[in-house]
């Protein structure tokens, strides 16, 4: 076991209590609520062994870090990453989280896990040993397996490069602040943060994070270009056969082709094509874009990710208990915390705040387990390909690897579970003074509820779809954006105008946003920065 402490002299203190030898005699992994590094390590090893042998999990190596509540709050406010560049908005989030925590409005998470290789798991120092075991199973095995095997994470994020990239980003932005002033850097970051949602590639795979050396090369080249810039070249007469026909349709089509339009990733487009940005400003936009892209898969797999981790910890803890490795008292504490985590009040309960992804995920995965081992006739009807196959492990591993929330629900939500949750659909038209119950959990409603629920987890469909459609770089340079309006849902006006102003900052010229009805193709309204004012 490797115990690494950040200050020397601590190492000797841990792992020499008499208690641990007693517990190993009785066969328990731990007793009492205090933890030390030796017990943590032994618990981890026992849990990992069972996880690999019984659930066939496949994980990144684990690095466990013990942190205090203050540090957990810090991590909360920097979007859960161990290092992050500086920005006032993180200070605002910190104040907010701190306030909630101080007032007891919200407890802190017991753990925080980072999709990196090695997988970093933060454990809170206040946790009891039973809780540490639970959290180890949840994060170090459940989440870890999901990160390593789910296709979204495999394709879209680069677990081994993220930490070094963030380190670079933090340093780069600090250097920019020194050279160009905090205010200038902040202006770019504010604008880029406003477009984070529109700063991801939803459909094509983003280019791999270039390695440190390549980035260094790019930067050196930029610096060289800055140094060797000579204004004289600008004064040379242009060649006569330059493109004049910019007004024709052919010209527009040609222009769109060269700029790769339409483009859904606004930040990418601005970074590459803005005429007013300096190289360092482009690099900052790129940093924000990379961070947004990194979190995109996580947002698409909330139910699955939490469900997988919850299923894993619940199954593993029960197995440990069955083998007599955990005492009844500890198991009781674990179950109490477990049931708090998966608490799901009904829609009319004052505590209701949406569907709890832990609860839904766990229920669906346990349902899969049930269907593959003891299916009913209905299940055989709905899930012919795996009902009764008896191999729930492989079925689950396959689901974890190949789905995101939307497709997972669309494939695996069973009528039995819909009845258990008593799902129903409430149709909400803004023009009506009342909701209408559209479907309930009955024979006619199952398909609709399943499709509706899946739809609500489809980020691509639920976020405003805004794209760059046209810009005439040789003409008025007005950047034309298009918002595809689905089901008549418009943009919130105040924040739309503010966001457009931010785009103007980055683009430097006029920006206009047209709302286009997705069904009819008609223009609903058009807003341009010249109408907004400063």
């Amino acid at each position, binding site marked *: 076991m*490797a115990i*690494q*402490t*950040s200050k020397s002299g*601590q190492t000797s203190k841990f792992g020499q209590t008499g208690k641990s030898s007693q517990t190993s005699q009785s066969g328990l992994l731990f007793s009492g609520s205090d933890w030390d*590094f030796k017990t*943590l*390590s032994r618990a981890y090893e026992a849990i990992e062994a069972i996880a690999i042998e019984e659930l066939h999990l496949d994980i990144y*190596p684990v*690095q*466990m*870090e*013990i*942190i205090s509540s*203050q*540090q957990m709050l*810090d991590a909360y406010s*920097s979007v859960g990453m161990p290092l992050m560049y500086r920005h*006032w*908005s*993180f*200070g*605002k989030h*910190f*104040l*907010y989280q701190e*306030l909630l925590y101080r007032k007891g409005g919200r407890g802190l998470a017991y753990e925080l896990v980072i999709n990196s290789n090695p997988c970093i798991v933060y454990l809170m120092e206040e946790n009891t040993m039973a809780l540490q075991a639970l959290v180890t199973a949840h994060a170090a095995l459940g989440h870890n397996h999901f990160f390593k095997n789910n296709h979204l994470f495999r394709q879209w994020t680069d677990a081994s490069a993220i930490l070094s990239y963030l380190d670079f980003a933090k340093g780069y932005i600090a250097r920019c602040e020194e050279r160009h002033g905090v205010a200038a850097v902040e202006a770019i970051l*504010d604008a880029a*943060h*406003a477009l984070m*949602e529109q700063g991801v590639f939803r459909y094509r795979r983003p280019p791999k994070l270039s390695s440190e050396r390549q980035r260094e090369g790019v930067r050196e080249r930029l610096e060289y270009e800055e140094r060797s810039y000579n204004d004289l070249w600008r004064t040379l007469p242009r060649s006569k056969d330059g493109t004049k026909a910019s007004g024709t349709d052919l010209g527009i089509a040609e222009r769109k082709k060269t700029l790769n339009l339409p483009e859904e990733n606004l930040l990418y487009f601005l970074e590459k094509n803005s005429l007013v940005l300096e190289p360092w400003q482009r690099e900052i936009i790129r940093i924000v874009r990379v961070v947004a892209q990194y979190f995109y898969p996580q947002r698409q797999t909330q139910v699955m990710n939490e469900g997988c981790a919850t299923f894993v910890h619940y199954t593993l803890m029960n197995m440990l208990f069955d083998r007599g490795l955990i005492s009844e008292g500890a198991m009781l504490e674990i179950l109490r915390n477990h049931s708090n985590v998966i608490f*799901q*009040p009904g*829609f009319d309960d004052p505590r*209701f*705040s949406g569907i709890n992804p832990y609860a839904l995920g766990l229920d669906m995965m346990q349902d899969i387990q049930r269907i593959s081992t003891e299916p009913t006739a209905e299940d055989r009807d709905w899930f012919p390909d795996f009902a009764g196959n008896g191999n729930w492990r492989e079925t689950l591993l396959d689901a974890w690897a190949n789905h995101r929330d939307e497709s997972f629900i669309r494939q695996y939500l069973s009528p039995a579970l819909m009845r258990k*949750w*008593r*799902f129903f*659909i*409430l149709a*909400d038209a803004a023009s009506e*003074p*009342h909701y*209408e*119950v*559209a479907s*309930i959990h009955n024979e*006619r409603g199952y398909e609709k509820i399943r499709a*509706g629920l899946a739809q*609500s987890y489809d980020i691509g469909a639920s976020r405003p779809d805004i794209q760059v459609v046209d810009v005439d770089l040789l003409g008025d340079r007005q950047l034309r954006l298009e*918002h595809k309006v689905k*089901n008549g*849902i*418009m*943009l*919130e006006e105040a924040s*739309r105008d503010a*966001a457009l102003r*931010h785009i103007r900052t980055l683009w430097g010229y006029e920006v206009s946003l047209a709302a286009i009805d997705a069904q009819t193709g008609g223009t609903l309204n058009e807003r341009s920065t010249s109408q907004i004012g400063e």
Partner: protein
Amino acid sequence: MPIFVDRRLNPKDKSLGNRQRFLKRAREELKRSIRDRIRTGKIADVDSEHAVSMPARGTGEPSFSDAKDSGRRQHILPGNKHFAPGDRVPKPGQGGGGSSPGKTVSEDEFRFVLSREEVLDLFFEDLELPDMVKLNLKEILSFKPRRAGFAATGSPTNINVGRTMRNSHGRRIALRRPKQEELDAIAEQLAILEAEPQSAAPARQRIAALREELERLERRRKRIAYVDPVDIRFNRFDAQPVPNANAVMFCLMDVSGSMGEREKDLAKRFFVLLHLFLKRRYDRTEIVFIRHTHEAQEVDEETFFYNTQSGGTVVSTALEEMHRIIAQRYPSNEWNIYAAQASDGDNFVTDSERCIGLMDGQIMRLCQYFAYVEIIDERESHIFGTTDNGTSLWRAYSVVNQRWPNFQMSRIANAADIYPVFRQLFARQPVLQKSA
């Protein structure tokens, strides 16, 4: 096999920088919030923490988001009890933010706490106080170390030699540490015996016995130290606040119709600042509010700032009232009396003479310091400049000003003008502290 890293010892407050950036960004809004608090709150409350709500301007994080009040959407909810398809459910009341069930408090609506330091920073900002003054006002209290018995631990400079030696002596007696004289006596005896020519066996035995005794005593002396660490005592010091007497601060203000919102706001900031000064120097400061029109009365803070009263302006009534209260409650040998008067300068001409008389005759004798501020329109400020020409009260007080060094008067057109009034008051401070 996992790697463990103990991060608990890492530097904390990683978010401090971000918090400061946020406050800087929200500065204008926070200042406005503090100013509102000063306008509506109590004078003594400025010197504490403040809860402020999240400023809306400048700290928004806009993004493209769907408008809640348009279009058609579906909510998929758990926990159906009795609904059947086609049932209609009325939407929750208008203005409740409506269409999405289970809404949570938005992040932009929360309140957070500014520390005392941050509040004072914001308060001082447009008063243009010199930095040294700001620092001085922000300091909590001055302490002076006082002897307070003895302690077994401390720094070497604080060793109390007398006490240490007494302990050492007691211990030496208790443990029967051989004295130097005993050793000397035996050595002398030994020398005498050894000096004698070779003699009988008894003499040799005696010499051997004496040698042994000498050795034993020397060993004992080595084991029992002369001064042992357990003997050492240190002088103990307690940090005691510098004894300050009581102070009372009289706030006098003209509340006749001519004093508008702006005038009252400036006056209030002037009173707040004086209170901060006094609070730093005295353990206990009380505030007495006297308002006057053509008659004066003592009122509470609320009434002082917010109730208007109609009537003429007779300043001397306030001075008489002040004199009466001093005589009744604040004997000048027990209390340091400070007075601050704010007015727009209007007064009956005949009354001004009376004011001079009162000030000269009674009040200035009792007061440590009397500050008069005349709140004028910003447009007038450059007309009046520093001329002695002015309102009737100004001219009257100019006379007082020449006679009494502890009288201070100034015209205030905006917040930055307030501090100069206190300059003299502050300049005296270091001297006072030394003498305390």
